[in-house]
C-alpha cells in the first residue's frame, strides 16, 4: 500500500514498471480503514484476530466492495 501525491503520479509510477492498477483509496478512506481496523484494542489480552467474515464486514462497512476486496474469491 503506497502513498502517492496524486493519481497521475500513481499512474506514471505504475506504467514505468508495467504494473496494473489495483485499487485506490483516498487518504480519508485509508484513515477510516486504519482506525476501524486497528482501533480494536489489540493491546488488550482479550483481543482476537477477526475472522474472514468479520474482516469482510469491515471492508463492506467502509464501502470497500467488489472483487478486489473479496477475501473469499
Amino acid at each position, binding site marked *: *500500500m503506497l*502513498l502517492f501525491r496524486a493519481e497521475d503520479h500513481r499512474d506514471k509510477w505504475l506504467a514505468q514498471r508495467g504494473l496494473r492498477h*489495483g485499487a485506490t*483509496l*483516498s*487518504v480519508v478512506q*485509508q484513515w477510516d480503514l486504519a482506525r476501524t481496523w486497528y482501533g480494536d484494542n489489540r493491546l488488550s489480552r482479550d483481543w482476537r484476530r477477526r475472522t474472514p467474515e468479520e474482516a469482510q464486514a469491515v471492508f463492506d462497512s467502509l464501502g470497500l466492495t467488489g472483487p478486489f476486496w473479496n477475501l473469499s474469491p
Partner: protein
Amino acid sequence: MVSTPSTLDDDVRVFVYRFMVDNERPPMPIEIGTALGTGSAEVEAALKRLADAHLLVLAPGTPYIWFANPLSALPSPYPVVAGGKQYFGICIWDALGVIAMLGEDGSVTSLCPDCGDEMTLLVRDGEIEPRDYVVHYAIPAAYWWDDIGYT
C-alpha cells in the same frame, strides 16, 4: 500457575505489543522469556505459533519479530510519530494504524514514490490532513498473506 501454550501465546503477544509501544523496538525472545518467567525456547515456539496464526510476522528463517501489525520492527518508508515516540509502519495503512491503535494525535511522513516530494499526513483529534493524496493497493485482499512482506 503453569501456562498452557494458549495462555503463553496470549502472554507473549500482549508483551510484544506493549514492549514495542514502550520501547520503539521489538523484544528479543530472551527478553520475553525473562519477563514472563519462561525459557526462550518456549517463547520462540510461541512466536512461531503466533506467526502461523498471522498474529505477527517473523523475519524469514529467524525467531525475531519483523512486524506485529501495525508496528514494524525495521525502519520503513513510513515513519510515524505518535505519543512522543517514533515508530514505523510497513505500509501507509499500518503507519496510520499505529496512530489509530495508540489513540494519539500523530503524523506520518513519506516520499511520493513517483516524484520524491515529501508528504506529511497529520492526524489531530481524529481528523486527517491533507486529504488530496491517494493510496494504491497492488494486491487483491484475498492474496495479501501470500507474501505479506510484499503486500
